[in-house]
């Protein structure tokens, strides 16, 4: 026979699982489920909840058709600040703090060198790209794209290191540390001097060699 008993046993287990977890009785706590709770569970309207046509005394808005569904709640400043980490080319989003090439040099050795190499050349086996080099190669037969040769804005360097590096401990660097590492990498790339110091004022002023290297997408008018 075809393992009949064993199968029967698992059927029983399956059926049990079905009644106890997959189909909670009506009114039972549905915690842990990922489907939306029924509308009956809408919380009382508080001042944090945006205006809803449901609660619109004027009765002017069309309920639930275009906007003002009354769903979601106001995001607090603290909630936004906790994850609003991006930095823009004009310096918007840069935090207070500063860091120097010298500080960056020792930080690099401690936190980055193992992957990106002594000379920022990148370590192939680890998939870590070169951070400098390749200047004036972009139009050649061997284009080398790095922070030094290709990047148009220093803000991108700050933003990326802060959000994603070091790869084995992302999001662990302080603002001072990211300024210092940026100064060091840009210094090693010959974009800044070895006496460089960066902060929210100076970083957006950095002139990247490839600042004018990008053009808009001409498609679909051209291939």
């Amino acid at each position, binding site marked *: 026979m075809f393992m009949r008993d064993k199968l029967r046993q*698992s059927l029983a287990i399956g059926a049990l699982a079905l009644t106890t977890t997959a189909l909670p009785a009506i009114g039972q706590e549905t915690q842990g489920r990922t489907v939306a709770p029924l509308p009956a569970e809408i919380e009382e309207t508080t001042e944090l909840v945006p205006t809803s046509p449901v609660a619109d005394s004027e009765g002017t808005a069309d309920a639930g058709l275009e906007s003002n569904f009354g769903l979601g709640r106001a995001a607090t400043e603290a909630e936004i600040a906790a994850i609003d980490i991006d930095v823009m080319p004009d310096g918007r989003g840069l935090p207070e703090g500063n860091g120097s090439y010298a500080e960056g040099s020792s930080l690099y050795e401690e936190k980055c060198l193992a992957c990106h190499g002594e000379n920022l050349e990148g370590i192939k086996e680890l998939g870590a790209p070169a951070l400098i080099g390749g200047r004036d190669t972009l139009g050649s037969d061997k284009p080398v794209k790095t922070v030094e040769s290709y990047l148009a804005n220093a803000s991108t360097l700050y933003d990326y290191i802060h959000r994603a590096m070091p790869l084995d401990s992302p999001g662990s660097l302080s603002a001072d540390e990211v300024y210092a590492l940026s100064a060091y990498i840009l210094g090693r790339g010959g974009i800044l001097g070895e006496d460089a110091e960066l902060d929210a004022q100076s970083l957006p002023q950095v002139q990247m060699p490839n600042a004018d290297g990008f053009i808009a997408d001409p498609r679909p008018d051209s291939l």
Partner: protein
Amino acid sequence: MSDDTTHHERYGPAERRMVRQMADAETQMLDQLAQDDADCECREGMFPGVSRRGMLFGGAALGASLLSSGQAAAQAPPGAIEYPVQPDSTKEQGRLILDDGGYGSRSQFENELRWRYPTDSLDSSWSMTPLAAGMGIITPSGLHFERHHGGIPTIDPEKHSLIIHGMVDKPLRFTMNDLKRLPSVSRTMFIECSGNGLSEWDKPTLKTVQGTHGLTSTSEWTGVLLSTVLKEAGIQDGAAWILAEGADAAVMTRSVPIDKAMDDAILAYGQNGEALRPEQGYPLRLLLPGYEGNTHIKWLRRLEISDKPFMTREETLKYTDLLPDGKAREFTLEMDAKSVITFPSGAMRLPTPGYYEISGIAWSGRGKITGVEISADGGKTWNKATLQEPVLDKCHTRFRMPWVWDGREAVLQSRCTDESGYVQPTLAELVKVRGVYSVYHLNAIQSWHVAANGEVSNVHA
């Protein structure tokens, strides 16, 4: 692929390394298949790439544990459960209902797999869809291609929320439950990584369609229109861009034009009738129909509305298209029309002359596919293929054409047109404008050479 090395000197070191690794891994996989073929007496020979032995790039250890035809093996293929094959399935009852635990599995005789592109970094890597085995237009969720820059996060949907802020009247925070209560939409559409085909600019490099085209997949996605949520927050005058940010270790970010966001962008929580797969962004993913895959931010946690693009690493150092003059195109967001024949395709062998159905997929980021033509003589003459309904906007479209192979050499090509009138270009036309270093957005006509012995290979013709 030893004869490739000198050729790829022309690329930058990173691209060169990538292509070499990719070719090596594919060769390794094909060797494994050849080995399996040799072990198997029942070789049919027609579909080495689409047989139950499957596509297993860079996974030799796993490959060895997979089934060979007709033989029982200790371990079932991923996604399958190994059951004893009944000598006569009409003479005894089959296994019982729910023996699979309540969530089904595929047949133990099917083992198509995504293939991980062998990047040096395991955290930042990608896997490709086995297109040769695909049927219809939907990619099974478990075979949808992947691209991660910081691994796959495990996120509790109860704790996940989406914050919308910046140039809005009311900064808002939505839980997953909030989002699921908003009016929902479903849309079947492709996502293609703009790096799809990056190994093929200079010369034919990979052997199979999984390698050359496997970074495109189609799912039915369900979620809420981003415009619904943005109207809820109230977009302010002067807003032009939105930063979308993921909650993975790369905290992936891309800037999206506000017009696109208000047009057809979707905050998706569903894929093919169930919740998103973790590797596709569970619990929430931004979908931008027709845009390059990298912009479809997974594990979405934040949207910031702004007047300017943010110039993140992924839209500057990466995903920009370098031209021969050293300038690079930025924000090349739309995926142009593209098609590929998936049967017959590279590394297959047609066993005998005679009837075959040529089949493949076409898609465009600028609308519906309006036509696909097929050539069997390398582009000299073309015939219209049949398009399988439904033909959907910004979606894989299946095409077919009957073909009687006379046993002589042939070069098969497909060329598609979309509703904007755009015709898929030849590689030569593309290279003339963009050179061979632009990495991204290769959408040229693909050529498969059919040799007199039936072997199909990747060529530039």
